[in-house]
Each structure stands twice: as C-alpha cells, then as structure tokens.
C-alpha cells in the first residue's frame, strides 16, 4: 500500500459551535456527546481526486453557465478568486472547488425557496472549478442578494456564496461561506455568529479587490481558503513512544 502522512488535528476551536441557540435548527442537529478523537488513518488521509477534463468551459461562470452562454444573468458582475492553501502554507493544486448562491434578488433556484424575489431565468446558481498548479481558482458570477429566512422573527442572511472544497484527503473536506466586505448584515447574522472567534469570522469576509477588477466589466473579490495540513516528519513509521 501507499504510505500517507497523518493530518494535523482539526482545531475545533476555530470552527463554529455545533450547538448555537440563535441558530435554531442547530439545536436538534448537533451531537450532545463528545466526538471520538484519534490520529487520522488512511481513510481520512486519502480522498477522491478530480481531473480538469471533467470541467465544461462555462462551469466556473455562473453568469452564463445556466443558459450555456445563450443569455446572461441579472446582477452586479463580479469575479471571485483566490488560492486554496493548507495549514503548512503550501498551495493545494488540482482540487475541486464548488460554489452555490442565491440570485441577485436573494432567491435560490430550489423547490424549498419561496421568497418573493423572482427567479432569474438565466441564473442557475451553481459553479465549479479545479485549482491550478498554484492552488489558484476563479469564478465569474453576480453578487447574490441578501434575503430573509425563517429563524427568529426578522433574520436576514448577509450576501454570501457557499464554498465546497475537497483538498486531497477526505479528512480535509470543508464547506464554508464567503461574505462580502462592508455588508452590515454580517454582524446581525446568527449563522455567521456561530464562528466564535471574530478573527476567524473576518477571514470569511472577502475584500473588494480593485486591482483585479476590470473597468467597465466586473468588480473582484479575493477569497483565500485554508484546509487542514499534513504533519511532516521522518519519524512516522515507528511504534508509538519508540
């Protein structure tokens, strides 16, 4: 078999509380007993890999991928780009990044979303890409709208894009959300607030990136993502304690 290196333990304190009373659904969907913690095994240290050849030309362009380029989605045109790194600071190349989001009015193309804002006939709301040799990715999309959701009597989600990232190991699997610089709803959102440490929440907020914007075309936002790293050691294949 192929040897794999152990993953760095997940730092649970930088992640959300699973049980967070202001986010009501979490109350019945959070384990009440402790997680079983141990060193990663090959089951977590390996993971699915996806090739660039699975991608269509428009997969990372949410402005036009729903119509296969025939018509464009309504909204503020933006480019979202960044790098996928791991805790050691190394780029994570050739890893799948998937995104999904509401349309410019704050409505998802989903049977369970019944918000008044209309569907955009030219917007599906999903996209995907694979990072390049340097861990870099980019999407073209429209800025999603904020929207109300049933939680407390008047809760609104800030503008956000959902991100799903694989890494190279099943134990690196991560889903998160990207918020937008300057959105006043971030500080009012109980889902954003599940992240205890403000500095960790700030890392989910993408800054406006004018130098990577294009005049008369799109604004850019930069969003870097960090996955779990692997422990680097020459002592791995010895019995514990020896």
């Amino acid at each position, binding site marked *: *078999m*192929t040897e794999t290196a*152990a993953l760095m*333990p997940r*730092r649970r304190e930088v*992640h*959300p509380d*699973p049980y967070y009373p202001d*986010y009501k659904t*979490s*109350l*019945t*969907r*959070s*384990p*009440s*007993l402790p*997680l*079983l*913690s141990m060193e990663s*095994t*090959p*089951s*977590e240290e*390996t*993971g*699915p*890999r996806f090739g660039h050849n699975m991608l*269509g030309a428009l997969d990372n362009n949410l402005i036009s991928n*729903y119509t296969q380029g025939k018509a464009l989605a309504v909204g503020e045109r933006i480019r979202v780009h960044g790098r996928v*790194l*791991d*805790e*050691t600071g190394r780029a994570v190349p050739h890893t799948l990044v998937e995104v*999904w989001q509401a349309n410019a009015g704050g409505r*998802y*193309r*989903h*049977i369970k979303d019944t918000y008044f804002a209309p569907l955009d006939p030219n917007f*599906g*709301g*999903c*996209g*995907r890409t694979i990072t390049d040799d340097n861990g870099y990715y980019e999407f073209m999309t429209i800025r999603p709208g904020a929207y109300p959701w049933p939680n407390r009597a008047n809760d609104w989600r800030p503008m956000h894009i*959902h991100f799903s990232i694989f890494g190279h190991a*099943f*134990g690196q699997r*991560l*889903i*998160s*959300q990207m918020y937008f610089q300057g959105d006043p709803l971030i500080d009012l959102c109980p*889902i*954003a607030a*599940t992240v205890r440490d403000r500095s*960790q929440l700030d*890392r*989910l907020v993408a800054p406006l990136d004018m130098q990577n914007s294009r005049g008369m075309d799109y604004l850019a936002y930069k969003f870097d*993502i*960090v996955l779990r790293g692997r422990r680097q050691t020459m002592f*791995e294949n010895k019995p514990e304690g020896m």
Partner: protein
Amino acid sequence: MTQPLDILVETASQTAGPYVHIGCIPTFAGVEGVYPEDLGLSPIEDGAKGEVITIVGSIYDGTGWAMRDAMFESWQADAAGVYPGQDGADPKVSGFCRFAADKDTGEYTLRTIKPGPVKGRNGQVFAPHVSIWIVARGINIGLNTRIYFDDEDNSGDPLLARIEQRPRVDTLIAKKTGDGTYRFDIRLQGEGETVFLDL
C-alpha cells in the same frame, strides 16, 4: 519573542444550508443543464471486484424526525482494502459517492461494493468500513462517521476499540437485512446517538 510558527489556521466551517443540493447535486435539486450529470453518482463501475451491497437508512435529528434535507458523501477502499489513487487500486472503484436523504421519506440509499480491511500505520488493520461525511441545514461543521458491517470481524478494529461505552459501538455497525443489503441509521443527538469522529 520566538520565531513565528508559520502555521496557517484552517478556514472556519459554515453550515451547508438547506440549498446544498444546488451546489453539490444540482440535477437532483432541479437545476438541470449546467453539468452533464451530478458528481459522485456511484462509487463503483460495472466490473468492480467484490460483493455489491446496498446500504439503506435514515438520519434522525434530536426529536427523532428523519431529516429530509441532509446530504452525504462516502469514501471507501476497494475490495482489497486499497484506496483509489493508491498503487494497485481497482480501476472500477472511484470510492466516492454523493447521495441525499429522500425529500419525502428521509431515507438514503448507497449502492457500492463491500470494501476490504484497510492497513494503517504500525501494523494496524481496520475492519471493512465506509467513511461518511454529513452536511445539512443546522449542521455547522460536517459530521464524520463510519459504517462497519455486522457480518465482518470487527473485534480488532482500532477505532471501534477506542469507544469506551461498548453499547455505542453498535451505532457504527450496519445490520444485515438480506442478501447484500444492510441498514444503517444515524442519530444526530440523544438516545442511541451515533458516534461521530474527529480524525
């Protein structure tokens, strides 16, 4: 002062939300035509070595309600216990599957092959198992667990051995219900709570 450690911090998780299907299995969600087909429809192709099995189950919240909006990913070795991408792996086994709770009943189905025992470091051997990752609205960070099988010898498994309260071991073991069929229910919270993993 000391030298800086130069270790980055993992990006914080956020819930996958109720619309995770749009991003991960868009055709299932009714967003058709963006991709030719959804990713991870099956972990095996025709001709994969090993016993074809079907695992069925539900995921229950803390009130006992079968959740209708959960999404699952599975990852597993081939019949010889080799993971896809490793030397000698069965080319007909991708090992990865995405599946969702049924919108009406909450039940999920995973059709795959029974994986073989997996060798770990230092001579460890893990009994046949499928790794599972669960996301949904209300789950703030994806939950990891494993499906073992009640017709395999699980007695030497190093992970199951770490579970102090022995009755809880059963929460990770699928029950054989027929020829090649198993049932594996997941309980998120409360009585019979599934053991979730931090590996």
